């Protein structure tokens, strides 16, 4: 079983190599004549006003937190969805298997509705 994963490891290494090789070749073949104007960060020809490591909108942070919540939920749903056909097929488990997940989803959706009502998903 585990030997099936060996090609994946090799593929990831090959993928990294294909990322590294062009940059390395570009480094070797392309000219390099830096000057201070060329190396300044691009700001439409102006002198850079200040450092770019500045404050940013807190909404991005909020989106990231809500994303983690939903992504975890999807991760929890994956095993259930995989065996859902078996759950449907087995008579005693049918409704239990579905309603339990329905309750789980509803709890998350109530939280999402709260975030929505509070305006966490709005951009203006």
């Amino acid at each position, binding site marked *: 079983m585990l030997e099936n994963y060996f090609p994946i490891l090799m593929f990831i290494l090959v993928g990294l190599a294909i990322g590294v090789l*062009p*940059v390395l070749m*570009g*480094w070797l073949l392309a000219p390099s004549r830096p000057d201070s104007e060329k*190396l300044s*960060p691009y700001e439409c020809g102006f002198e*850079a006003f200040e450092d770019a490591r500045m404050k*940013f909108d807190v909404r991005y942070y909020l989106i990231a937190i809500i994303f983690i919540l939903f992504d975890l939920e999807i991760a929890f749903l994956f095993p259930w969805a995989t065996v859902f056909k078996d759950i449907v097929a087995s008579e005693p488990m049918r409704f239990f298997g579905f309603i339990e997940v329905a309750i789980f989803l509803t709890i998350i959706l109530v939280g999402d509705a709260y975030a*929505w009502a509070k305006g966490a998903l709005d*951009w203006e």
Partner: protein
Amino acid sequence: MDTLMQFGTGVFGTAWPAVWTLIKIVLIVAPLMLGVAYLTYAERKVIGYMQVRIGPNRVGPLGLLQPIADGVKLLLKEIVVPSGANRFLFVIAPMLSLAPALAAWAVVPFTDTLVLADIDASLLYILAIGSMGVYGVVLAGWASNSKYAFLGAMRAAAQIVSYEIAMGFALVVVLMVSGSLNLVDIVQSQQKGTFADMGLNFLSWNWLPLLPLFVVYFISGVAETNRAPFDVAEGESEIVAGFHVDYSGMAFAVFFLAEYAEMILIATLTSLLFLGGWSSPVAFLPDGIVWLLAKICFMLLFFLWFRATFPRYRYDHIMRLGWKVFIPLTVVWLFVVGIWMMSPLNIWK
């Protein structure tokens, strides 16, 4: 085939399985890279014709050597590393962006036997490795130390994670109806059904019973790859080129490769999950890899078509579409499919 195996064992000894795997990887990656190169050509040609222009036609017959000329040009351009940039992160960001876009192909099946790594968790693997692509974008934007790049990276990251949720829910429903995480099984489960028995296989594929999810999955895929009309992360008329504004030469080319490899991956996954993969649309024609390639090209055409016809979305509209339309829609459809499967009308026995 046997003689090849014996020859290989004779030359490489015990290292032969690793070498053989490497050969197979190259056999996947080389056509993929060629596909990426000619997708850029096709994009310019298709959009050109849609706008009543000719598109590239100078380099080689019909401009067919244009991608190669572009590659050589990029290779000979200086790689500028801005003075304010974090050098290490700046250099590895394009590699981190390309590696996941390629590594996901390890588990993609081309026919029921033609698959490099036939693992049971292939869909989970694709979901996991697909999420890694956002790191390259965020690191590139942050490491450049340029305001445009930073804004572009923040936008791209928020957009990618938002649409990933809608995609994830769509995948959950596909799993419910196919009962396996293995992509080969998912395709095979689409080959049976009432319509398949009548010889009309294409009506048994997942796209018809899961039509809203098919649409949501593909549009989310367009948003995930930051393609038009969701390309505010690059928005050349406002933040110049977004996260890769300070990249040049081959470092830029690697980002470019990653974006197009990701597009082909999304088109392939859509074909496998919703359009029956390598199955032929009607029963009297044989199944085969040709069908998969045709479906991939068909889905890729949509990427180009969208770009040629839709104006760019505003950022708040993109976020509203993701969070307030797609996520509720997919969750509702999850309930609908769940109840459908428990009712006597269940078509996925």
